[in-house]
Each structure stands twice: as C-alpha cells, then as structure tokens.
C-alpha cells in the first residue's frame, strides 16, 4: 500500500442541493490494493461524495479522475462500465430473486449459439456454476445458490452483495455501511471478506460509522468535515480519539 498512483481521484468537488452545500471543494483518492475508510459526522458529505464517485449524482464543479484521466459519470452504469462497483446500504439485492440471479442481475449470460442469440435463452447452469465459484472463492456460505435472497440471513445477504461487487469490479469497490445491520459473528465474516477483496488488488472504499471497524480494517482514513476532506490519517499515526476530534473540528488536520 505504499505510494502508487491513485486509481480513482476526485479534485475540489462541489455539490449543492438548493441552499445546502453538501460538498464544498472535497478531494479524494484511493489506490489499488488498499482499504480507504471515509468517516465523518452526519452531514459532513460522506454519502454525497460516494454518490459522485459511483455515478449516482453529478457534481456541480470539480473533477473526477480515473487512472489519471478525467471522467464524467452520468449514471451508476457509467461508473460500473469503468470498473467501479458499489454496494448500497439497503438497495443491494432483489429479495425475491435467487442468489445466482442476483449475482448476474443486469449482466445475465446467454447460451452460446442460436439458442442464445436468436431465442435469447439464458445460460442458467453457467451462471449458477460461476456464482457458486465466486462465493466459494470468497468464503461465503449460503444454503443454496437457488434460494431466494430473502431466505438468507443478514450476513449471508451482505456476503452475496459484496461478492457481486467483487466479482464484477475491475478497479474499485465502494461499500456503504456494510456491517450496519449485522450481528457480531456476521460482522467479522464481512470484515474478513473486505480484506480478501483488497488482497485481490482492488481499491476498496469503506464508508462506516463504526470506529473500531474502521481502525481495524483501513490502511488510510479520510476524515470529512463540512463538505471537505479535513485530514487523512492512518491507524498507526492516529488514535480513534484523534479521528473523532478531527471529525468535530477540535483538532486541525493537515488538509490535502
């Protein structure tokens, strides 16, 4: 995680909603093979920043750069095409569809030959096989690959959502509060999963309120305050108390 050029970068992003300035010149960068946590109080601009990076909203000013080239995401689809996958807090999966269908939702595989091109026949077996392989590789256990997602536990569901992002991401995985609704055991599974994704060489962006998790997991921590990046710290250079002080503005950070 030393040096290296940023995979995804944002420079002086401004985003206003009516009179409210959600982002006021916020910057951001994440490198391949690292976990970058983004923390901040409510209203500090965390979620707006993530929306800009994942294409869910477009900034009023500023620049997003992907591998040092300026990009403009008009929709989540644009960001996905650029290799950025996002796991949203509530809207990750379609509950009535099964695990395999969810993993391939919007990117279904078709049979080879005429059956696929003319009859549009889905390659269900191929998708199930591939889904099972992906889950096994990430150590995610589900009762059945054909079980509706709503029959899974919260942790299993989160596992499927994260696996989907990891399976398709080529550059960056963004996780919005991935452990918010989970129990202790399930949480530790998801944390281990996030490390495995980093170890695949992807850049992981973690938005979380949970300081102990952030300090356990992150390589670098970006502290947001009043719509800007207030500081970048690491779990080695700063304590949790320092980070909270930076969030509250009680401690001045070296802003980048």
């Amino acid at each position: 995680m030393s040096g290296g050029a940023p995979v995804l970068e944002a420079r002086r992003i401004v985003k206003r909603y009516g009179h409210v300035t959600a982002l006021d010149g916020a910057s951001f960068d994440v490198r391949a093979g690292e976990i970058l946590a983004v923390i901040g109080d409510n209203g500090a601009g965390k979620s707006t920043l993530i929306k800009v990076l994942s294409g869910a909203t477009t900034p009023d000013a500023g620049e997003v750069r992907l591998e040092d080239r300026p990009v403009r995401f008009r929709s989540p689809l644009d960001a996905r095409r650029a290799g950025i996958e996002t796991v949203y807090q509530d809207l990750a999966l379609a509950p009535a569809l099964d695990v395999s269908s969810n993993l391939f939702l919007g990117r279904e595989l078709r049979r080879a030959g005429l059956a696929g091109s003319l009859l549009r026949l889905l390659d269900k077996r191929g998708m199930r096989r591939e889904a099972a392989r992906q889950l096994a590789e990430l150590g995610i256990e589900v009762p059945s690959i054909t079980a509706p997602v709503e029959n899974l536990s919260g942790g299993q569901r989160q596992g499927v959502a994260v696996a989907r992002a990891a399976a398709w991401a080529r550059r960056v995985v963004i996780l919005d509060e991935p452990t918010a609704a989970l129990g202790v055991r399930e949480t530790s599974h998801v944390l281990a999963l996030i490390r495995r994704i980093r170890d695949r060489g992807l850049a992981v962006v973690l938005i979380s309120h949970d300081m102990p998790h952030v300090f356990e997991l992150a390589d670098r921590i970006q502290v947001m305050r009043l719509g800007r990046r207030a500081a970048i710290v690491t779990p080695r250079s700063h304590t949790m108390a320092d980070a909270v002080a930076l969030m509250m503005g009680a401690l001045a950070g070296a802003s980048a």
Partner: protein
Amino acid sequence: MALLLAVSFFAAKSDRFLVADNGSLILQQVMVVGVLAVGQTLVILTAGIDLSNGASMALGQIVMTKLATQGGASPLVALAMGVLTCAAFGLLNGTLVTRIRMPPFIVTLGTLNIAFALTHIYSNDESFAGLPDALTFLGRTFTVGPTELTYGVVAMLVVFGVTWYALTQTAWGRHVYAVGDSPGAARLSGIHTDRVLLSVYSLAGFVYGVAAILLVARTEVGDPNAGLTDNLDSITAVVLGGTSLFGGRGSVLGTLLGALIVGVFRNGLTLIGVDAIYQTLTTGVLVILAVSVDQLTQSRQR
C-alpha cells in the same frame, strides 16, 4: 390443489362434468379471459395493475369487425389494425406510467374510460355481424381423441407458452421480476427500469389484441358491449394463480391454473344448477381467500 379439489367435487356432483366435451367447453370459456390474464400477469409482476385490458380488447374487436365489414379492408389488415389499436393503448399506458410517473391504477382507469368511449363512438353502438371467414378462423375446430378443440384454444396455449419462456428463460423476464420486486435494486444493477415497464405495458397491449381476435372468433360478431367485466376477471385469474399484487412474485402458469379454476367453478356450478349470481359470489369469495393468503405470507416474510 384448489383446481383438483374443484374438479373432483364437480365430477362427483354431475356426471356431465368429467367428459371430454365439457373440458373442451371450459377451455373455450376461459380462452379470452385467459389471454387477457397473460397481459395482466406481466403488468402485475411489475407491481402494476391494468384496469383497461377488457375495454382495450373491446375497442380492438370493434376496429377489426367494422373495418372488415364496412371499411372494406381485407381481413388481414382489419386484424392487424385491431391488434395495433390494443398495442397503442398499451404503449400509452406504459408512457404515462414511466414518463409522468402516474400510478398504474389511475392511468389504466383513465384509458379504460377512453377505450370504452371510443368503442361506442366508433361503433355507433352497433354490432357488426356477417364477418368474413378469415376473422373467425380461430373459432374452427379440429378433432383430438374423443372431442374437438378450437384453434383459438391452441392460440391461447401458445400465448401462455411464449410468455412463460420469455419470463423464465430470458434476461428480459428476470428484469421484469426485478423491477417489480425492488425497482431501486434493479436500477442500481444497471437495468433500464423504464424501458422494461414500457415493454411490459406495450406487450400486454399486444396480447390484448390477440384476445380481441379470439373474442371475435368465438362470438362471430363485433359487440360494443363485450368485455365489460373482463378486466376484473383477468385480475381474478392472476391472483388465484398465486401472483402477488405487490409485484416480483408469481408465474404465468399459475395464471393459467387461476383461469381454469374460475372456468371450472363457473361451469361446474352451472351444471349442478347453481344460479349465475351465486357463481359470481363464489368467485368473489375465492379472490378474497387468495389475496388473504398472499398478504399473510408476505407479512410473515417482512
């Protein structure tokens, strides 16, 4: 299950029930509503509802029969114009639902009235009889074992089969389920939810056009008062078939069973001499039972 129970009940009560000719008759009777219910299933799977399907079919049927008898159009053109009319109404429904974001209930309540009025204006409240053979072709029969089936029944089964294939074996079908199940997750998965909805309403409209052809073939007349309660009957069939009004759950094969259950009840009650009004009563009770089951299983899962 319910279907088997009903069949065995009526078989025990009437010796005219369980004969092949009666089976063929039931299929005849459910043919039109069955095909309407296919379009209704598509719409309900997306968590919508279509109140306009019966009226749209009635308009399509009048367009076909008037053009063929008084308009001097060739039968094929007349049929095509009728189907196009229905598809256009579907497209209109879909456009209003996706562009203006109106609730499907309100949109189709509006188009129900529009189609109903246009039917009466265009027909001058007249019926159109003396149809050319090509229009009633699907009403002809062929022999299967001990009984005869109409080509219309075959057409109905084909509509069910093709829709089943599209819903279960193609990516489009999965997207239909996903849009009804969780529109937000579908959108974030890169599915163009509005395009899916538009295709569903348009396709449903096209299917109502097919229903109009079957109606003409069965009645051999263009009747401006046809199909008045068929919208509700189609919803009944869909709901009895186990498709959830909340969207995202259900199947078109269930709808076929649902339509058959209604058909079997109507037919069976007639054979054992129950008055028509009590048949309607029974259907009402059936629907409420089916929806209660849906509600209860939903709330247990939430």
